[in-house]
């Protein structure tokens, strides 16, 4: 039995590895073993890469042995969502259509991890093409919540979140188009950060909705969140939407924000919140007050339209982004019967390859871009998008350092309870989509627990609180989260798995 904790905080691991108290290879082995051991239980991984991971680990150990400098993540095991291209293994997006697709190149953000000495343990499960809020829309079956195996971990970065929550790795990469990092982070009691749009390169990230997609880290500590962000961010010539601005993520991380002012949206105290979520929000407000923060009420009048605008813009872009999966060059190609033509090749390959949620969104997106509907749907949604951004801008003009609200209206729900009701599932994103529409950074932190009873089964489930900041305000968000972590213990609790 190994005594090595593969999920130990990044800074500890890096220190121990560079001091040769533990080898990177031992860290890699421990993470791989734990991932393997929990795979049947959690289904957090699509593929593990033992050979490449051990190779990466030995390379780090060799550098250390030679006395050469190593990166910020030397010897740290990490997991990446399976919608990020990696030049080995599969990149499936948990879709039948890419079930056997192998990318010939590596995504910029992933390459930065590798260059920093991280060990890529494996690719994690997700809702197909990142479309979903539960981790259930995967062709490889649902992922489970480490706090309660009958429940979903949230999504779409379901495997990346479960793997961190279960202590398989200290950090992972997810992607967030409408809440896919922040919502599962909340449901699994860990930290998750969706950076400002453009701060992290999207090159190599399989596109869902290009104007909303951002890669971001999931971790168990604020320090790890900052460390991961520092590594993956930065301008990339391969991504035209990549920001040239710089964020100093680590600066004064444990220095409290002077004169902290937080805005709490009137709309976040919604009746849709479960009692535990409502209580966590109020408790969070109290904690910040105790820390000396000024809490002001703000108004995000268009937040309720966020879901509607999001479910027009995101599917519109998705219908176009996913059109390339046509069975011609790569990916699944349907067997054709005699006399079947090119159109049959397209229709059959795509019908067999895409799951129902993806098909639903492709149809929705195709519809709203069609002539005759474009103005009424797509252009209107763009106008709403601008209004939402204006709402946030106005709030920050009132002097808020950040906006505080839940990451989702309820804690983890049971598997299958929302799969037949897409609208109920879409409402999971009510507090998160606006942040993507506005291109802002959003951070989820452990904010409490809620005792629930479903079908006579009692459980205590994590609740997440979300901090939203102005563009490029990541450092402030991280410092506020650190202040909160110093006063609370939610982030120290671990699932009994």
């Amino acid at each position, binding site marked *: 039995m190994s005594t090595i904790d593969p999920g130990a905080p990044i800074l500890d691991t890096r220190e121990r590895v560079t001091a040769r108290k533990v080898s990177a290879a031992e860290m890699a082995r421990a993470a791989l073993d734990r991932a393997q051991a929990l795979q049947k239980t959690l289904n957090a991984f699509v593929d593990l890469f033992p050979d490449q991971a051990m190779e990466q680990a030995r390379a780090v150990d060799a550098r250390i042995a030679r006395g050469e400098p190593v990166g910020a993540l030397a010897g740290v095991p990490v997991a990446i969502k399976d919608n990020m291209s990696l030049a080995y293994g599969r990149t499936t997006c948990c879709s039948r259509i890419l079930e056997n697709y192998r990318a010939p190149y590596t995504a910029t953000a992933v390459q930065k991890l590798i260059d920093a000495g991280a060990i890529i343990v494996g690719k994690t499960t997700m809702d197909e093409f990142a479309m979903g809020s539960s981790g259930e829309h995967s062709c490889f079956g649902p992922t489970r919540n480490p706090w309660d195996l009958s429940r979903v971990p949230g999504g779409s970065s379901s495997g990346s979140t479960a793997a961190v929550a279960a202590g398989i790795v200290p950090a992972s990469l997810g992607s967030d188009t409408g809440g896919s990092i922040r919502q599962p982070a909340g449901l699994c009691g860990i930290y998750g950060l969706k950076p400002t749009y453009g701060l992290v390169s999207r090159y190599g990230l399989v596109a869902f*909705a290009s104007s909303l997609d951002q890669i971001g880290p999931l971790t168990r500590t604020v320090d790890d969140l900052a460390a991961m962000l520092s590594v993956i961010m930065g301008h990339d010539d391969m991504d035209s939407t990549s920001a040239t601005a710089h964020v100093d993520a680590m600066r004064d991380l444990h220095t409290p924000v002077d004169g902290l002012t937080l805005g709490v949206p009137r709309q976040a105290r919604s009746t849709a919140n479960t009692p535990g979520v409502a209580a966590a929000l109020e408790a969070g407000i109290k904690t910040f007050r105790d820390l000396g923060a000024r809490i002001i009420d703000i108004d995000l009048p268009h937040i309720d339209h966020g879901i509607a605008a999001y479910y027009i813009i995101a599917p*519109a872009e998705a219908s176009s982004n996913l059109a390339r999966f046509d069975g011609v060059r790569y990916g699944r190609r349907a067997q054709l019967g005699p006399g079947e033509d090119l159109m049959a090749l397209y229709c059959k390959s795509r019908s067999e390859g895409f799951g129902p949620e993806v098909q639903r969104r492709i149809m929705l997106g195709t519809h709203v871009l069609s002539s005759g509907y474009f103005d009424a749907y797509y252009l209107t949604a763009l106008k709403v998008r601008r209004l939402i951004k204006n709402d946030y801008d106005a709030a920050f003009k009132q002097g808020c350092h950040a906006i505080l609200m839940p990451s989702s209206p309820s804690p983890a729900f049971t598997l299958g309870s929302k799969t037949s009701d897409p609208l109920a599932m879409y409402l999971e994103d009510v507090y998160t989509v606006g942040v993507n529409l506005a291109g802002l950074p959003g951070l989820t932190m452990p904010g409490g627990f809620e005792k629930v009873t479903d079908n006579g089964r009692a459980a205590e489930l994590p609740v997440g609180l979300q901090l939203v900041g102005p563009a490029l305000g990541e450092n402030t968000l991280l410092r506020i989260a650190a202040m909160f972590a110093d006063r609370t213990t939610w982030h120290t609790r671990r699932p009994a798995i």
Partner: protein
Amino acid sequence: MAEIASVQLKVGLEIHVQLATRTKMFCRAPSVACREFDHKQSEPNSCIDPLVLGLPGSLPVINREAVQMAMMVGLALGCSIAPLTRWDRKSYFYPDLPKSYQISQYDLPLCFDGAIDMPLPGEDGRVNWDDYDTKRIGIIRAHLEEDAGKLLHEAPGGLPIDYSIVDLNRAGCPLLEIVTHPDFTTADEVVAFAQMLRNICRFLGVSEGVLQKGHMRFEPNINTVITLTDGRLVKTSIVEVKNLNSFKAVRGAIEYEFAEQPKRWQREKVEMSPGSKSTRGWDDVKMQTVLQREKEEAADYRYFPDPDLLPVVVDKNWLEQTRASIPQLPMARLKRYIDDFGLHAKEAAALVDERDVCFFYEECIAAAKQAGVESGKAGKAVANVLLQSGAKRANERSAGASAGSTEQVLISDLGIMPKQVGQILAMRERGELGSNAADELFGLLCEPGQAATDAQALAQQRGMLIVRDDAAMGRWCDEAIAQNAKAAEDVKAGKDAAIGRLVGAVMKLSGGRADAAGVREALIKKLRG
């Protein structure tokens, strides 16, 4: 029932120009339209990368060189340049379109609202450069987009296959789509415009304009206006003929439709209306258009702004830099050659017909002036030597090129350098070189390995320079008189016509080195005292 009294043709033209950038429109894969690209050396699907293949996760990055070239063409066509221009996705499924959408420009094209005056061809389809009218052709827009790949229905080597294969070498290459107003009324006009546009693109250096390589493709939109005997006007429905890649095909397709559309209208009675437009292809063998798509079903391409790309902002600086980088265009050069150099229209037209020849011509003029040729005479003198000694050799080499090759050898490709041409002309002007010797020297300098040769030294070494030596002249004259006693007698007897024979003999004896002007004088002096 009213009969057809007359038919008027109406044509608008869409032109696709592959811009000769080094890399493709949105990635770093090499472009097949690049000047240095070798089609024979490149395997199918060799100019590819993740973006060209449409691999998931790949992202487009704008090639500013393509924007620059597109702006140059737009400016040359008198277009306005949009200060901010956007990229849109045009969606449709086809195996040669890897992303299943083409990145194009929908409502904010880079170049718009232009016009250019073209010289009108005469009855014979050619422009009479001594006397021609011009016509203004309106340009609706010129926008940038990416090319598609190629779908092949037989295997390399012509082997039959029962499936199709895709070559993506062309996919993603920058394409400039130019759309004119329907201002053309004859096929000759369209072809003349197409040729002029090709020439402009060559002068701008944005395309080699080799139609066989697909550097330019033409799509005329053709219809006719029929006047009936009762005075009623009928507009026939518009036919768009796709992908014509030779001037012959452009002319053929338009002439065919001009003849056919009135008959088609008589048969089907379909008039121009929204949705009545059809798409046809061109059969080069039968010289007919062939129906591809009846009634353009208002194709829904679901255009929307590409979220992967930022708008391109053309600031004043960039625009002015681009404007300044545009070389003088062929029509302006033609006028200058006639007005300033005193060239005949035909000579000037021959010199501006090929960009490389034209640029070579001007380099030779500069070299001639440098070598001491009188400024006012250099243009004409260089034109003479290039269009005589040069054209003769270019034609010989073209004819001698390996069978099957259609490559025309250009005067600028002969091997002789501008400096050498300048030296020849300077020697001529100084009276050191006879005309035959000049032509011979020109030929020698076209041979391989002579690029660095000093023309003056070579002429000297080969004894080609005119000899100004009275003793030698005396010897040649005596010998010529001895060889042609009869002619000498005739000259003595006052028959001037006979002297030509003697002059010829002297030139022959001197190997062309005798000063032609002095020979006659010397002979008469000898014979008539």
